[in-house]
């Protein structure tokens, strides 16, 4: 468990630095821990059974070695890194693992996780790649199987109100994260991108109620403290996730303030609430399939190129407007096909809005970060000129 004397941002920083130790501490206190991969598994069901969901991440500082015996190097290095950590025993505290067919790389990783890492309980969620009604119905059915499997593993059924309460707690968390995003609207923002990343990674390894307490502390602290940020050009990040503060620190020390991130450790898991539906699983299925806006899901397209772009990326225009964005960094982890394929169209769309776009395909390694400094600094100079 973390040092109880720490609160707010200091506590978030400590949990960010020691995710494994924090999770093992929870386990010593009798909690069950399930790891989940990507932001698609419906963690509300885990919370409803008093299981703590821990988001599986990679490590940009750890060279991938053991995973390369099982996964091909042409695959997304984030997935390979996460699997590598699993092979090295860093997730050996998991009572269960929940993977999904979020993207092809996540699917392969999830399936072989069960073969090689052998968490006591393994689930693989088949998530459709379209979001129309038949796909939602199919996904709801998958979640029903998931629920039944979880109940069998734990040896008890989810109580009628437990799922609704879990959904409410996670919705509350989503609202608190959005409140934190509001604090990044001023210029300069009241909270840096690095601080935000640490808070989000911390709460993705905590029981939801503990995470909500932490978020409340952070919001209060940020509102009350003197603004410590400098005025710089305001950057939106779109694309593959960033899970290491060394990366955001590099960006923010190159003349840019990160103000919003449309990534899987950013707005995506938190931007929409799960609706209250008669069958709660219906609301869960609709939310994950239709409202978590990763390009792994194909959405209805318009009749022509411009309409199609508008329907798919219109929300980025809103982000840019309300967060007063000056430029966009399209972050592509090498071999992340899902985001890589979107680059030409999203660049075209954002530049059409007058927003300069910096595209970098990076190696998911802190060792190769410094070579990116010139790119970020030159991008800041482009915006300034």
């Amino acid at each position, binding site marked *: 468990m973390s040092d109880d004397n720490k609160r707010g941002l200091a506590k978030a920083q400590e949990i960010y630095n020691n995710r494994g130790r924090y999770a093992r501490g929870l386990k010593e206190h009798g909690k069950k821990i399930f790891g989940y991969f990507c932001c698609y598994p419906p963690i509300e069901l885990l919370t409803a059974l008093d299981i703590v969901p821990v988001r599986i991440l990679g490590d940009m500082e750890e060279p991938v070695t053991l995973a390369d015996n099982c996964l091909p190097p042409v695959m997304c290095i984030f997935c390979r890194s996460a699997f590598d950590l699993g092979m090295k025993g860093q997730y050996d505290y998991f009572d269960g693992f929940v993977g999904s067919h979020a993207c092809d790389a996540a699917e392969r990783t999830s399936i072989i996780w069960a073969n090689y890492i052998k968490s006591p309980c393994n689930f693989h969620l088949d998530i459709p790649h379209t979001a129309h009604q038949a796909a939602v119905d199919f996904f709801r059915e998958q979640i029903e199987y998931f629920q039944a499997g979880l109940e069998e593993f734990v040896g008890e059924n989810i109580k009628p109100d437990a799922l609704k309460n879990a959904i409410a707690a996670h919705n509350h968390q989503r609202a608190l994260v959005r409140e934190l995003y509001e604090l990044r609207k001023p210029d300069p923002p009241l909270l840096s991108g690095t601080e935000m990343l640490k808070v989000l990674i911390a709460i993705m390894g905590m029981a939801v109620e503990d995470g909500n307490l932490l978020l409340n502390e952070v919001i209060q602290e940020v509102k009350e403290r003197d603004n410590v940020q400098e005025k710089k050009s305001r950057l939106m990040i779109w694309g593959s996730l960033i899970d290491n503060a060394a990366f955001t620190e590099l960006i923010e020390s190159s003349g840019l303030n990160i103000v919003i991130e449309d990534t899987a450790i950013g707005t995506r898991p938190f931007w929409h609430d799960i609706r209250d539906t008669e069958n709660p699983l219906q609301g869960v299925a609709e939310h994950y399939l239709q409202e978590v806006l990763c390009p792994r899901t194909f959405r209805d397209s318009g009749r022509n190129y411009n309409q199609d772009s508008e329907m798919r990326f219109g929300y980025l225009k809103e982000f840019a407007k309300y967060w007063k964005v000056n430029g966009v960094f399209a972050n592509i982890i090498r071999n992340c096909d899902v985001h890589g394929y979107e680059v030409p169209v999203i660049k075209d769309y954002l530049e059409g809005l007058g927003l*300069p776009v910096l595209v970098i395909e990076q190696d998911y390694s802190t060792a*190769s970060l410094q*070579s990116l*400094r*010139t*790119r970020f*600094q*030159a991008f800041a*100079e*482009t915006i300034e*000129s």
Partner: protein
Amino acid sequence: MRDVLANSSLSFEEIDYIVATGYGRINVPFADQQVTEIKCHMRGVHSLFPNVRTIIDIGGQDSKGIKVKDGRLVDFIMNDKCAAGTGRFFEVIADVLGVKLEEIGQRSLLSEHPANISNLCTVFAEQEALMRLSEGTSVEDILAGIHKANACRIYTMVARIKIEKDVAITGGGAMNIGLVKALERKIGFPVVVAPEPLITGALGAALIAGETAAALGPRKLEGMKEKRRLEAVTFFDQESKPEHGKWH
């Protein structure tokens, strides 16, 4: 810095404002501002050739494409993960073929049948050049093939930010006539080369420093100067440097 001052009639205190640029810019303790070599090359070239819209900078460690509009930096692209398309590539090939680096460009122009060099990885291209040599291909033809392949790689990268007239080439690559000609063939029209293409970035940094100093005014500059100290630029861990100045 002391060497530079010794060769001029200036003292350190007479310098109003210092801009550091290039790979080492973050390690210059007495600089007032760091500006990337991308912006500095742009400013330097724009002052020499106001009509230039695209700059191709071929340095020892990377190559870059830079777009200029009305004297402003509007876009850029760079490769820095691989030695292909950079000066380092030519250094390796010159060494393998036993030709002086300064001569490879001129000799490549003597070729009538450029060799087909398919591989652009520096290590594999080195092997490929040796293989062509063993097959009896002339050094000139190999050099022409190498220049053609590199020009193609650089062109493909810069084309991603759209090559628009006029085009200037800077950096050490601009001093290689074979590469300049190969790029011109690929681009389809002549390019311009600054008289001193190695220091257009330094020229740009000086122009930016001059403008900034003028905007700050004498009072602010005096305050900044008082705090500035002429310290050694450190690129290495000084403690691990051996006593006799030689690296083991």
